[in-house]
């Protein structure tokens, strides 16, 4: 009995040591704290109600407001985009005219970039630079370029058309000159930071442009049909896929050769190579308008969808499998606008 008790104690203390070692590991090893899905919540325009939430890969739970928890400050007004480079995350805060740079796994703030930032929208990385689209309402449209090593401003690339999404493929940077469903060109910036060409998309108006494995994908629609274009790193359209009869295709996301998008409440999942018009994988109803599916992303084989609840209440995140079974729902921050793998 006594020896038993002794062993139990010993066993318990060994466990405790192991457990505490493990804790220390978690603490010391940056790669495991906020590694999972990051969620950007825009917040309501004109108030610093933007926030960032974290969902672990096992989608067991959500942790809201992680930036504020770590840094004891609001992240800002309209968190529009998050980009990653090395161990840093770059949080683009539109109406605060700034980019907050944080350690991507701990979320401790490391820098704030404001030089030549005015109503920033999206960020992309290439050639030891990072590129930010700046689009002021009825004002200047430009891409500002920064040195990745020290966050210093390098140059400003002015545009006459609007500048919205920005992605990189190879050593080129692609700027979507379309926003709010209007516009059909993509500009290509080369490694000398000069616009070398403008790609005109043959059909439809661009809704969203992404890049995966050095291929740029852009989804367009003309209200009767939806088109997917693939553009190579040289800036040449290599493939057009017409999803005949699907109007209003939007919210493109591509992962592991799967293409996911929605048209109204219908969510489509198809293969990059497939040329057939897919049937909806699942349907979200009631579908009121674009605020019902405000953001959609396929990450780690799961589809994350946000419903921004009339912009007033906390957004609802729903996580679906690729075949459309609802696996989890979460309550996030205000106006959830983006999901990122971290």
């Amino acid at each position: 009995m006594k020896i038993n008790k002794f062993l139990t104690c010993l066993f318990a203390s060994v466990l405790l040591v192991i457990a505490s070692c493990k804790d220390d590991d978690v603490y010391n090893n940056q790669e495991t704290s906020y590694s999972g899905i990051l969620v950007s919540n825009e917040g309501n325009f004109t108030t610093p109600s933007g926030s960032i939430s974290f969902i672990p890969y096992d989608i067991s739970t959500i942790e809201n407001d992680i930036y504020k928890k770590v840094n004891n400050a609001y992240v800002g007004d309209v968190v529009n985009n998050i980009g990653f480079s090395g161990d840093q995350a770059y949080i683009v805060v539109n109406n605060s005219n700034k980019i907050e740079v944080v350690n991507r796994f701990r979320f401790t703030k490391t820098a704030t970039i404001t030089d030549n930032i005015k109503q920033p929208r999206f960020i992309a990385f290439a050639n030891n630079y990072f590129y930010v689209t700046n689009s002021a309402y009825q004002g200047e449209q430009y891409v500002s370029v920064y040195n990745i090593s020290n966050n210093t401003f390098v140059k400003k690339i002015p545009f006459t058309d609007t500048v919205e999404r920005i992605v990189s493929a190879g050593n080129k940077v692609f700027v979507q000159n379309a926003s709010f469903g209007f516009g059909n060109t993509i500009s290509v910036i080369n490694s000398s930071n000069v616009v070398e060409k403008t790609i005109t998309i043959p059909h439809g108006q661009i809704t969203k442009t992404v890049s995966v494995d050095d291929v740029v994908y852009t989804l367009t629609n003309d209200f009767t049909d939806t088109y997917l274009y693939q553009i190579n790193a040289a800036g040449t359209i290599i493939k057009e896929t017409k999803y005949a009869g699907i109007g209003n295709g939007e919210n493109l996301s591509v992962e592991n050769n799967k293409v996911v998008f929605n048209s109204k409440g219908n969510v489509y999942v198809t293969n990059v190579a497939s040329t057939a018009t897919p049937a909806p994988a699942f349907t979200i109803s009631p579908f009121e308008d674009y605020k019902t599916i405000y953001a959609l992303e396929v990450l780690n084989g799961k589809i994350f969808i946000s419903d921004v609840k009339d912009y007033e209440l906390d957004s609802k995140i729903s996580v679906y499998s690729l075949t459309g079974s609802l696996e989890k729902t979460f309550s996030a921050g205000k106006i959830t606008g983006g999901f990122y793998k971290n």
Partner: protein
Amino acid sequence: MKRIFTFFSLAVLHQFSAQESLIDTVFIDNQFNKVGKTAKITRLNSVDILQNSTSLSDLLRFQSNIYIKENGRGATSSPSFRGTGAQRTAFVWNGININSIFLGQGDINNLNLLSYENVGIKFGGGSVIYGSGAIGGSIHLNNTLDFDKGFHGTIFSEYGSFGTLNSFIKTKYSNEKLSFSFSANHSKSDNDYEVSEKKFINRNGEYQNTGFNFGLAYKIDPNNEFYIQSQHYDSDQHYPIFDENQTKTKYQVQTLRSLAGWKLNSVKIKNDLKLVYLEDNFQYFGDINKAKSSGGIGKQYIVRNDLDFFVSKQSSFNLISEYQYNRGEGYQSGIQNPKRNEANLSLLYRNGNLAKFYWEVGAKYDFVEGYESPFLFSASGKYKVNNWYQTSINISRNFKAPTFNDLFWQPGGNPDLKAETSYQAEMSHYFSYKNLKLEITPYYIKMQDMIQWAPVTSIIWSPKNVRDVNFYGLETELSFNKNWTNHQLKSQISYSYTRAVDQETKKQLSYVPFNQINFKTNYQYKIVGLFVQALYNSKIYTDSSETHFIEDYLILNAGITINPIKNIQLGFKVNNITDEIYETVNYYFMPKRNYAVSLNLNF
């Protein structure tokens, strides 16, 4: 100053007297005293005003149970009366409803309180007399003109924390026939306060505004008098930003309010004819360094006739007829050039034949271009049960008209909107015992067809008559006033319980505190005066799902005044003594402890 105060007290004392005409004053809003016979009203005189001289927001916040939502000190601010929200509170300037024709609400921090002799607060609906928006209550900004008082002038100047300066100069002259009044006021503040605990700096919070007021009255004979009252106001208000690099924005307003009237008094008939012109110019600057990004002009031409016909000495019919022509002009906004003709007729009957029971009934109909207007009515009575208890009851139907933005905004304006309507009932109980007075008012408001903007497509928002909301609550007020030989004490504590329940979700509307307590006390000993104010708000939900909220808070203010010689008063006050960190709107922190010194000269 003292004379104004004394004079005002006299006016208050006389309010229940039927012989109003004895007071040698032109009340430009001649309805307010009548309304006060049955409705719950509060009057704030010039002494009260100077205790919260920074803004009308501060005055209403600390001296009434109205909840004031302010985007940081001095910035955009709106009231909520009985939980009904800004669009259901009427601002009434000398008897004329001045809520914006575009927004349907008053912009409190652009109504500088130093322009007015007194501020009246009327609780509960009053659309029959005061028109659209008088649902939760109305706030009355009044100037008065008196006769036979000679020459009188006041200079007031106050310097406070955050580079704040509030000043006014007022001159009045009157003889038996002529009364003249002129005042100018100026307020300005750098307003760059900091709440370090919250890493908050009120960046770009500066404001300044200037007002000029001019009044004139002339008695032709004992039965006829003419009067004019005019106001010009100019304001430059920056909007606070939360981040150093954020684009700074600002808002400018130029307002002109003018009225001319003729009062006829005879035994059987009292008639008051007013011609009114209201002009509101505003410009929004999306970037303070650039040209205006949008703006507009609203113009209102009003003819209003108020006829009292006395059936007997204590009973009368009152016919109010009004015609308005309203015109809007937009600059780079969704408003083009909307115009609207509107006429309305109100008929009231008042009866005070019984010594203990006074009652009145009223009805109103609006003829409005562009939307369907509801039939309105009111009925009220006051019964003096004994010498320590009185009770009054008010029942009415009130409305809020769709605004120019609701109807005409392009794209999205909805020309098919109906007016919001509400039924209201309240019952007040007044108890008095020696120097104590207790007032208890439970009320109930059932509001239908509340107008709400919601997105209809990806770009277009549109208003609809969607919500039904029930408001109910209880207002109580306990006051103690006493004068000794050299001492004078006035204290008041009020408590309100407010529910504003959306009939679909069964949740409280946002920004309606459940419990609010106000306390104020004034003590005067010879040449020294002291005052203390306290405000408590219980937690306030900031969204309609009762998820997020602002914590409860308690704010204390205090001040001292000294009159070293009769005509000079020196003042010192401390606001937010306990350094409470608080917000009235989510994210916009209010200042911590701050100070002001003032000088008041009377000649």
